[in-house]
């Protein structure tokens, strides 16, 4: 197994983005997906970083793909999506509707916010030209195994959500702005204040969700650290790591050890917890349990 780094979910400054991809170039990750995944309003603030990041990553031997938005509604967003296919790099679709712009015969990748739940859909995507699919985070291991088998037969590499706050929902409405009593159109980019999203707790103080603009994530970081052997046996070919603001290079090194099965599950979990002191880690989805179920 190897590692794919997903698109940055959060609204980071151009400078942060630049440093992040510079660090990634020196990491053991095999491939990187880059692009605005959550909100098109953020893109003008950092899009000029994309060509440089692509160059640095490519020079370091990484495979680079461009991500579409996860929810495309506005005319401007449709045009941006169409333009992505003209950029000369592989595209990872995050909204199935992006396939309308796919030039005939061009291969593409599929991100975790596209609903690939079964072999029928996987095979249909393969016929359309999909070469790589990151499965939805909520899928249990039994489904992952069936899909990894079907993927092998259809020539599609199967990835699983390996680390990071899982994308749980996306909306036409911005809940981040709403927390500041603002609407989406007058948001004043408040999501930029929270580089790992804004926490949401239950009324009795239990950490539960994280709001990130129009996207809602799980609060606990989902990790497959204890389940890598099962995924390898199922035939999963890559783990997807979702960028976070701090300590990411160390995480990539640790998950690289896991992907190469150079470390036991127990050691992997202990080192992960040490890299993220105080963070809650969850692994319920793969076990067909509530996704927020704590590790251990």
């Amino acid at each position, binding site marked *: 197994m190897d590692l794919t780094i997903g698109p940055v979910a959060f609204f980071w400054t151009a400078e942060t983005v630049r440093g992040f991809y510079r660090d990634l170039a020196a990491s053991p990750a095999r491939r990187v997906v880059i692009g605005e995944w959550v909100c098109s309003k953020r893109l003008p603030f950092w899009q000029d970083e994309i060509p440089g990041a692509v160059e640095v990553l490519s020079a370091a031997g990484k495979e680079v793909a461009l991500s579409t938005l996860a*929810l*495309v*509604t506005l*005319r401007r*967003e*449709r045009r941006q*999506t169409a333009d992505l296919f003209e950029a000369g790099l592989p595209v990872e679709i995050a*909204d*199935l*509707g992006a*396939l*309308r712009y796919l030039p005939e015969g061009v291969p593409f990748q599929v991100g975790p916010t596209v*609903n690939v*739940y*079964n*072999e*029928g*859909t996987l095979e*249909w*995507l393969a016929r359309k030209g999909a070469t790589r699919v990151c499965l939805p*985070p*909520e899928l249990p291991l039994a*489904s*992952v195994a*069936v899909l990894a088998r079907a993927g092998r037969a259809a020539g599609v590499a199967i990835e699983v959500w390996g680390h990071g706050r*899982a*994308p*749980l*929902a*996306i*909306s*036409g*409405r911005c*809940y981040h702005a*709403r*927390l500041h009593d603002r*609407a*989406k*159109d007058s948001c004043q980019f408040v999501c930029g*204040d*929270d580089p790992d999203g804004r926490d*949401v*707790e*239950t*009324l*009795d*103080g*239990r950490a*539960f*969700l994280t*709001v990130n603009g129009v996207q*809602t994530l*799980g609060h606990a970081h989902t990790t497959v650290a204890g389940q890598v052997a099962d995924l390898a046996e199922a035939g999963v070919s890559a783990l997807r790591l979702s960028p976070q603001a701090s300590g990411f290079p160390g995480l990539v090194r640790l998950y690289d050890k896991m992907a190469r099965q150079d470390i036991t599950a127990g050691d992997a979990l202990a080192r992960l917890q040490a890299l993220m002191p105080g963070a809650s880690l969850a692994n*319920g*989805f793969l076990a*067909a*349990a*509530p*996704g*927020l179920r704590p590790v251990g």
Partner: protein
Amino acid sequence: MMELVCPAGTPAALRAAVDAGAHTVYCGFADETNARNFPGLNFSRPEMAEGVAYAKARGARVLVAINTFPRAGEQALWHRAVADAHGAGAHAVILADPGLIAHAADTHPDLRLHLSVQAAAANPDAINFYAESFGIRRVVLPRVLTVEEITAINREIDIETEVFVFGGLCVMAEGRCSLSSWATGLSPNMNGVCSPASHVVYDEVAGQNEARLGGLLIHRTPKGAPVPYPTLCKGCFTAPATDTGPAQTGHIFEDPVSLDATELIPRLQRAGVTALKIEGRQRSRAYVAQVVRAFRAAVEAAEAGAPMPAGLLAKLTEGQSATTGAYAKTWR
């Protein structure tokens, strides 16, 4: 006249809806193939055939919702549901999963296909993609769009649109939400349930009513006040203070409201919408009959250019507030 598409969770509700003036009724089989997979709801195969016959005899049509995402390795259950809906004489099936849609288009080329709201086709390109790829004839639009956006969509597509006007309200893009499985392990996409009743506990603690889902506190109200059903996206939560914003406690996603877009029906008609959909397959036949009668009067008024009858549904929304949701841009 705009077509009225009404819910039926039981054969009795189907008959009630048809008798009350529904042009079309939608329902599902009693298993995980539909997104209202609740105990005691939905149709056996013979009931479906009888329901279709009952509707047809009265000039109404039946749509069968097969709108969950087939489980890997067990697609046959979903394939059989499509074949059985076709065999029962359904006017169309409502599907969400691309693999299942591809199967239906290949295997049942004469079966009319509608794209479920669970497919979340939210722009003209996505809708045209489904129409061109599979011959989809109608799309149920996600509840994330404004009336203006719906108007624009209808200008760019050739297939029919159907929009929700009454009942439960999803505030996330439907078919793309895993909040329920995050908290309970069961989701709309995989299991046909959201915030399932099996995981709900109501309790009284220190003189207050509490509603929990999967052990998570979702609502707390003073004793004597009603405690709403703990649907995750309509729960009460706290966002602790940050460097840039004060703490916020409240319904940070949405209040426990339901959708009522009655007043927007004339605008939806001008927007080129073909059909109006009422949510609520889990509702009683008495409720269904009342809502259908009210909306039949409303679409007839819209057809005649008359104002929308006011207060028709006051009784049904009493004690619960209603919203026009995303259809009004201010909602965002």
